């Protein structure tokens, strides 16, 4: 099954990885963005994916819940191949929360309604129940008092935290973060990272595409460096970020860290 040189075996304690990618490939026309990715994320672990723009890291993340349709290979969630045609994607996605670079809050709904919508329509929770959960998760991201505000009335950092709350309200088993802080003003980044760090410490399984090297170093259990559609280097954060082995990672880190 695994034809990759370095078979992923990050955590021997976990029997079944929460997320496992096997030979994942994705091409847009002639442009091959992912060239056979093998990666496994054990439950309750945080994996950060770093790399230059265009390296395929966002595409990889979007293949995990099949927002992007893989061109080849397999995506296994809790050991089940979700690229199988019989798979009910709506059910899969209920278990995988996703946070986007551009927040993608529903602009016509208040923060509270953003958080209750899928609970009511997908999980069929009652209005009262959805409301209760929504207020609890908004409180968790520090925005209890903004429940009635509309997205346009919130700062970018607040919008992103509502987006996290919206995903959390579905009680996901794992979370995907697609450059969650890249669109934020620098002074707002910290609040969002704090929420993500808390989630990690509470044992959420997280796959995080990020440019925040500090976050990767402090929070990640495992860091993956992608370059030109392949995993170029991976390992514990101190090793990957501290003693990069490949010239490409060394160059990348120099560029990122010299600022």
């Amino acid at each position: 099954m695994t034809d990759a040189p370095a078979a992923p075996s990050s955590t021997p304690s976990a029997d079944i990885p929460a997320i496992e990618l096997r030979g994942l490939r994705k091409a847009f026309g002639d442009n091959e963005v992912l060239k056979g990715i093998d990666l496994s994320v054990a439950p309750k672990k945080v994996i950060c994916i770093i790399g230059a723009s265009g390296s395929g890291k966002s595409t990889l993340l979007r293949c995990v819940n099949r927002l992007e349709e893989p061109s080849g290979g397999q995506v296994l969630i809790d050991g089940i191949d979700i690229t199988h045609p019989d798979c009910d994607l709506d059910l899969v996605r209920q278990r995988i929360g996703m946070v986007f670079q551009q927040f993608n809050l529903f602009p016509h709904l208040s923060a509270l309604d953003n958080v209750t919508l899928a609970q009511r329509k997908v999980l069929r929770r009652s209005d009262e129940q959805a409301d209760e959960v929504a207020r609890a998760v908004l409180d968790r991201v520090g925005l209890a008092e903004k429940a009635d505000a509309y997205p346009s009335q919130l700062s970018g950092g607040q919008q992103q935290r509502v987006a996290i709350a919206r995903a959390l309200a579905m009680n996901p088993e794992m979370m995907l973060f697609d450059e969650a802080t890249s669109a934020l003003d620098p002074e707002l980044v910290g609040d969002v990272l704090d929420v993500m760090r808390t989630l990690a410490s509470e044992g959420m399984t997280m796959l995080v595409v990020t440019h925040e090297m500090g976050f990767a170093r402090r929070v990640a259990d495992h860091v993956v460096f992608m370059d030109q559609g392949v995993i170029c280097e991976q390992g514990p954060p101190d090793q990957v970020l501290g003693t990069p082995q490949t010239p490409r990672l060394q160059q990348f880190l120099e560029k990122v860290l010299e600022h």
Partner: protein
Amino acid sequence: MTDIPVSDDGRLGEGDLPELYRSGRAKQARAKRNRILSYAAGIGVFVAVALLGDWGKIQEAYFDPESAKVLFPEIITTATKNTLIYTFGAFVGGVAIGLLMAVMKMSSLRPYRWFAITYIEIFRGLPALLTIFIVGFGTPTALGVQFPTIFGVPTAGIISLALVAGAYLAETIRAGIQGVPKGQVEAARSLGMSPSLTTRVVVIPQAFRLVIPPLTNEMVLLLKDTALLAALGTTATTVELTKFGRDAFSINLNNTPFIVAGVMYLMLTIPLTYLVGRLEKRNMASR
């Protein structure tokens, strides 16, 4: 720099100016001269018209109070009322057709797409007046169909205008639906919403807000196009504004009924146009 004389109000004196300032002054002087010439030309034309026009005759022919007085109250209670019924009827029908055609044009099934494209091309390509003739004169004669009446007016005109408006509105509505950012659909799908649920609770509400301004615009166009129904021939109870003005004109060949009818149209269209501007500004703000 320091040796340029400067007056108390901060203007530079005449002295030995650098090229930058001399050139700037020359440009300002030219702009001022052009402004004065523009005003002079406009005032000249205005004065000429005021002096040469036979104002007594013009007032009598266009703004005759007696000719205006006899138009009331029928011009409001019948003609304007009917114009509004034609407009709203055609608008509601047009939105229904437009929504259907927009959805069909985005369908994954090819025959539906073809049908919608054909419909839109035909009714956008034909003169509205021809469509009105086909529906209003041709169809009852050819098929022996009698169109029913609603609110006291025949539906032939409403149907023909709705057919035309539907073709235009289909494109407007489709643009609105496709104008909702892709990220909105992705966010909804990532929460486990099905495609149809996503369309219902995320896409349509946002598309609706996007299309309200162009929809209102279309209503203004429809309101004016109801004048074409004059060609179908109307009775004293089903007459719309333009035909009403035309009939009143025939009585004593005075322009005043046209002017009053025009004022009626403007009293409806200008607020609507103003509303479109407001709605567009609000949409901008909420983005």
